[in-house]
């Protein structure tokens, strides 16, 4: 494949005159990166506008919710309004909101009476641990199964995999979590459960290695739930992009060179089919973080998802707003990464 690509590359490069053009290498990429960064910044600003409209303009009167049920004089209400900045004009409030957010001041949680940013900081790591583990496992599993079933589409393996992915896509994440919880942690009938029920660790177990093992045990079920729900989507993306490559002439060339079927798949089809899948995975990563809300609720995993659920119950608007901004920012970041990674992976995009 290396020589085919080289030939095509040389032919394509000649008319453009890129190699001799004397343009400093990487400047194209820098410009590309700047464009994408600006686009990401604009997206974030739009998110802030939506967040501002949602949490600052739409609720009737935050002061009413805060003082709910407590006898408050008009003077106290006015002072509270002034403290919260509600007596300012809308553009002023938006400006303060943006500067506060950018400097990490997300307000104070009504429920926990703590700064929202420190609450989010505490809960970020458990979520990253859960999502990171689940993502690595589901990406590897999904891509592998997708390649296998796409390469021999119509085979029994393919039919099982597609059926299973379709079914798993139709399953509500939280329900799957509850079923796994009752099966493996509580136990049904004569089969006792053997995994811990909820939380991230047992406070009774302390000390280096024991603590790690304990956290790992608590991680098994929430992680398994996420993997089961998420990997199916990677399977279908990878499967259809492999199928799209199947008819390509370069595969015929590879076969004509006498390569074994496994080599044709691994060295020729998979690298090309990976492109759409990789970008898809990155774009999906951001939304996966949102999917953590239900899983963390079911398993009382002390992460951002459970924090949003706690905020939702009250409802604690500053906290909800904080988690909304963090979730949106993570999606934007992942989309940015997708663009950058795509650029590195696909020579066709690089050449443009």
């Amino acid at each position, binding site marked *: 494949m290396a020589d085919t690509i080289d030939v095509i590359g040389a032919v394509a490069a000649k008319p453009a005159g890129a190699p001799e053009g004397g343009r400093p290498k990487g400047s194209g990429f820098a410009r590309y990166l700047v464009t994408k960064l600006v686009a990401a910044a604009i*997206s974030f600003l*739009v*998110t802030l506008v*939506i967040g501002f409209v*949602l*949490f600052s303009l739409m*609720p009737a009167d935050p002061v009413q919710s805060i003082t709910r049920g407590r006898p408050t004089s008009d003077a106290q209400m006015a002072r509270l309004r002034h403290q919260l900045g509600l007596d300012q004009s809308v553009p002023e409030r938006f400006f303060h909101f943006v500067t506060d957010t950018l400097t990490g001041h997300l307000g104070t949680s009504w429920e926990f009476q703590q700064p929202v940013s420190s609450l989010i900081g505490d809960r970020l790591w458990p979520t990253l641990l859960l999502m990171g583990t689940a993502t690595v496992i589901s990406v590897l599993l999904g891509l592998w199964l997708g390649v296998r079933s796409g390469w021999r*589409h119509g085979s029994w393996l393919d039919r099982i995999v597609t059926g299973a992915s*379709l*079914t798993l896509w*139709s*399953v*509500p*994440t*939280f*329900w*799957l979590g*509850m*079923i796994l919880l*009752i099966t493996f942690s*509580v136990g*049904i009938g004569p089969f006792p459960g053997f995994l811990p*029920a909820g939380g991230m660790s047992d406070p009774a177990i302390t000390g280096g290695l024991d603590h790690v093992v304990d956290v790992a045990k608590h991680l098994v079920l929430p992680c398994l739930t996420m993997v089961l729900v998420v990997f199916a989507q990677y399977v279908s993306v990878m499967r*259809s*992009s492999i*199928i*799209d490559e199947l008819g390509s002439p370069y595969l015929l060339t590879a076969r004509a060179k006498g390569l074994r079927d496994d080599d044709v798949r691994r060295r020729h089809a998979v690298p090309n089919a990976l492109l*759409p899948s990789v*970008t*898809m995975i*990155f*774009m999906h990563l*951001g*939304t996966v*973080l*949102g999917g953590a*809300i*239900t899983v963390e*609720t*079911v398993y009382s995993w002390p992460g951002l998802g459970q924090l*949003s*659920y706690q*905020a*939702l*119950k009250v*409802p604690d*608007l500053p906290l*909800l707003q904080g*988690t*909304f901004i963090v*979730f*949106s920012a*993570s*999606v*934007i970041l992942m*989309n940015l990464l*997708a*663009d950058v990674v*795509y*650029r590195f992976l696909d020579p066709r995009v690089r050449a443009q």
Partner: protein
Amino acid sequence: MTHHEPLTKADPPVAAPPVAPVTSKPRHNGFTGFIRSFLRIRSGVAGLGILVVFALLALCAPLFISHNDLDVIKVDGPSLHSPTDGYPLGTDQEGRSILLLVIWGARSSLSIGLMATVLTVVLGSAVGLIAGHYGGWIGKALMHLTDWFIALPGLPLAISLSAVIGQGTASITIAIAITSWSSTARLVRAQTLAVEAKPFIERARALGAGGPQVMLRHVLPNVTPLILVSSTLTVASAILSEATLTFLGLGDPTGISWGAMLNSALSGGAVTSGAWWYLYPPGIAILIVVLGFTLTGRAVETILNPRSVKTR
């Protein structure tokens, strides 16, 4: 948005050679042909069968379930009991029959799923049509808006919206529609661009048709099949979203829905006491209905868009 390019490959006519499609044979001849092709796809028929059964159950539920069966105060069954005589699927904490609750829950899940889909499709199609028809700054602005909404995380936005609007059926319906219209808009826009490139649109314009007339009389009928397919799949995800939002406690607090049942199962300790009969029925109901819509949607898609057959 380079990363969208591989995903929008499914817009065939844009790059198609400008040979007039007039002489090409129609894919199916009218409604009967469509039905005949549909009946040939076994999974689609199974999906449609599931939907018919659930729709009938939901519609007829008031005939055999009285409010006394569902009222916490008036029921007299055992609390959180495994399946026994008279309670084929067991009871919940309040002593209500799980079977009756699941059947009643179909009403709210199906109606919210359908209403949210109608809202989503109307909103998405309108934005997509306008964005596709009017290029220029209107089209660009609408496309940027769509892209931003696609990039927003669905569930956090939906729960924030319903938390701000307040609990209730209307609020989750709106939340679902606002978080899901963008993909319909993108699809409809792509298709609108494809249709508008065809000669008959130019002919209509030459005969003096204005913007609205071209959009509604010429483009919309050609985009409708695609909208229908995408809406079948939209119902599936809307029902999943409805279940998730009601599970998080955002629906009508007194209403009965599958998500709300699972919420009270979790908070009422059904999981820790091993009450599996409380957990399985609502979840399996969601699974089957979502599967029903997905299978039906895919079958229709296969008939209308033969290119998708190989990726199915």
